[in-house]
């Protein structure tokens, strides 16, 4: 499992180089062929037993920000890349730009509020890198620089907490599948794509190049299994195995692939759950649109994704890996 290393690398959408380099270095000697494409995707190939092609895809990017302005007082204004709840960013450490300049997202002291204040938008949220004047900052930071949450991952007994589990969890599964040195049924393309969070962008070009017969997207997904959320609104529950998606925003997953994945789980007594909500889209939609490929999403259920502190269950990770490790040796039917 590579989650700790992977999540501790900064790689917001459009700035995935370091993640790509890490993955490439770890897998390049274990696959038949590997390439980086124009947009920044990393595609590794393993020969199968038939000429039909299976695409396994996970996205390398994470939600974050770019610098949108340098203010007169030396603070940085930011705009989000991907969907981030502004309430989750206060009092967090961030890293700015290629030089990884550390900063913090400050918050108005509670002492100076008449009542608790509503957070309306990122316009009111600034990054402080310890400067007091615009001129000081302009020497180190420019508009358009990336801003990522600082590394914070911890592996606990049974759980993992930290940033960017979405979707380094999926990347780690693909890397583990490569490490397992499985002889896949199909010609298999392990595709690590860019810019999922900003509109499912990398997976289109990846799918175009691979032109797969089947695609499985490995994601981390939402849950809602907490005391504040009604039980009947949950999308998944942690500890209950990989989530297989029947349909989500913009794409009804391929029926044959869905039934196939469920069958493999049942036959091998791997716990699984069917995702109960359709909110949120994935690269499965983009792949299906780009090449008309039947696609399916299998996810590690997660809590609090798209925030600097998300959580997943290690058993779920292991069962997701187990399901996929068997699935890729079989013919889809």
């Amino acid at each position, binding site marked *: 499992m590579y989650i700790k290393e992977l999540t501790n690398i900064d790689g917001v959408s459009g700035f995935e180089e370091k993640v790509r380099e890490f993955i490439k270095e770890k897998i390049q000697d274990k696959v038949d062929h590997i390439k980086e494409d124009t947009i920044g995707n990393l595609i590794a190939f393993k020969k199968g037993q038939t000429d039909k092609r299976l695409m396994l895809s996970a996205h390398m990017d994470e939600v974050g920000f770019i610098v949108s302005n340098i203010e007169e007082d030396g603070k940085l204004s930011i705009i989000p890349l991907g969907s981030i709840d502004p309430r989750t960013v206060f009092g967090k450490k961030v890293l700015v730009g290629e030089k990884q300049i550390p900063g913090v997202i*400050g918050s108005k002291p509670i002492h100076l509020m008449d009542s608790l204040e509503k*957070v309306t938008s990122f316009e009111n949220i600034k990054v402080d890198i310890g400067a007091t004047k615009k001129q000081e900052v302009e020497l180190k930071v420019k508009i358009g620089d990336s801003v990522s949450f600082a590394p914070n991952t911890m592996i606990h007994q049974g759980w993992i907490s930290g940033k960017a589990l979405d979707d380094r969890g999926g990347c780690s599964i693909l890397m583990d599948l490569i490490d397992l040195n499985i002889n896949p049924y199909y010609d298999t393309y392990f595709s690590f794509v860019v810019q999922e969070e900003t509109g499912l962008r990398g997976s289109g070009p990846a799918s175009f190049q691979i032109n797969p017969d089947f695609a499985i997207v490995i994601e981390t997904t939402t849950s809602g299994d907490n005391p504040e959320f009604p039980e009947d609104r949950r*999308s998944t529950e942690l500890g209950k195995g990989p989530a297989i998606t029947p349909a989500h925003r913009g794409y009804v997953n391929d029926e044959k692939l869905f039934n196939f994945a469920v069958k493999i789980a049942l036959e091998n007594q791997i716990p699984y759950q069917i995702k109960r909500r359709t909110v949120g889209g994935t690269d499965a939609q983009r792949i299906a649109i780009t090449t008309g490929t039947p696609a399916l999403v299998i996810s590690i259920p997660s809590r609090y994704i798209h925030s600097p502190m998300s959580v997943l269950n290690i058993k779920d990770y292991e069962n997701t890996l187990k399901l996929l490790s068997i699935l890729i040796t079989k013919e889809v039917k």
Partner: protein
Amino acid sequence: MEINEILKTLSNLNGPSGYEEKVITYIKEVAEKIPNTEASIDKQGSLMVKKSGQGKKIALFAHADEIGFVITKKEFGNYYRIHTFGGIDPKVIISQRLKIHTKNGTSYGVIGMLEPHLQTEELKNKVLSFDDLFLDVVEGAENVNIGDLATFSSEAFDLGEKYITGKALDNRASCVALLYTLELLNQFIIKSEPYFVFSIREEDGMSSAANVAFNLKPDLAIVLDVTHGDIYRPSYPKIETGKGPVLTVGTMIDHKYFEILKDCAEKNSVPYQIEPAGSHSHTDTDEIQITREGIPTLLVSIPLRYMHTPYEVVNLQDIKETARLLTNFIAVGGE
């Protein structure tokens, strides 16, 4: 004295109100390395460091505790509810990892925020209170009990060249200023009898500093705390970081000593700023002033950004200038 490193170490130590032992022990170790000091801890847990000198009894106070959380309720699974002491905006604890100080060591929990995908319009627009938040204990849940305290887990670091950021800089920045003053005083013949008090329990409102003042009976008490810097406050002068210590004027401040302190700053070219306080300063000053038959009090503050959040920010130069002001004041006997 490496004030930068000492401050970061102090920031990373955990000492919520009533549980300051590790912080006090570390401060004592640092103080005892400074020649001509005598340190002792009283029965409540406050540390007093004495420096020899002759003249008025001047006591300097800095509280060593920090804001924190109490585990208040267990929900299903590993979910718990928490509440705060010390005044914390619920917004700044969302998506934070907390260290829970259990009887069997440190456990970890995160304050989870439901994914934006699943949020209803109502939740998206809601101003969240502690009643809406929960702690998801991801490590050592079996050791967590109602009543255990928790603190932020943020680690201090250098923010640019001039600033340090981390938790509990309120009021460890003042603790460092006092330690640095202790060191600087070695260059002087001291014409007062100074006591440096690192007190406990300010944030929970108990003010053990006042208990120490009661026993010590000083001729003058100077309280060191932090104040809001670099933020616009209607009807208040703008207090800025990097512009030196902040001297409070107000009902809790002794007029005569205030003028002496201000003159001392000017004489020694210590930059300073003036901040008015109304009925209360919300520091130990308020309590010390009315101890026994009344004790003359002064309040000197270090300006700080983002008070009571996991990453408070202070300017090291402000700590140094504060120490320089206090050193000169004490050395000449507060006259």
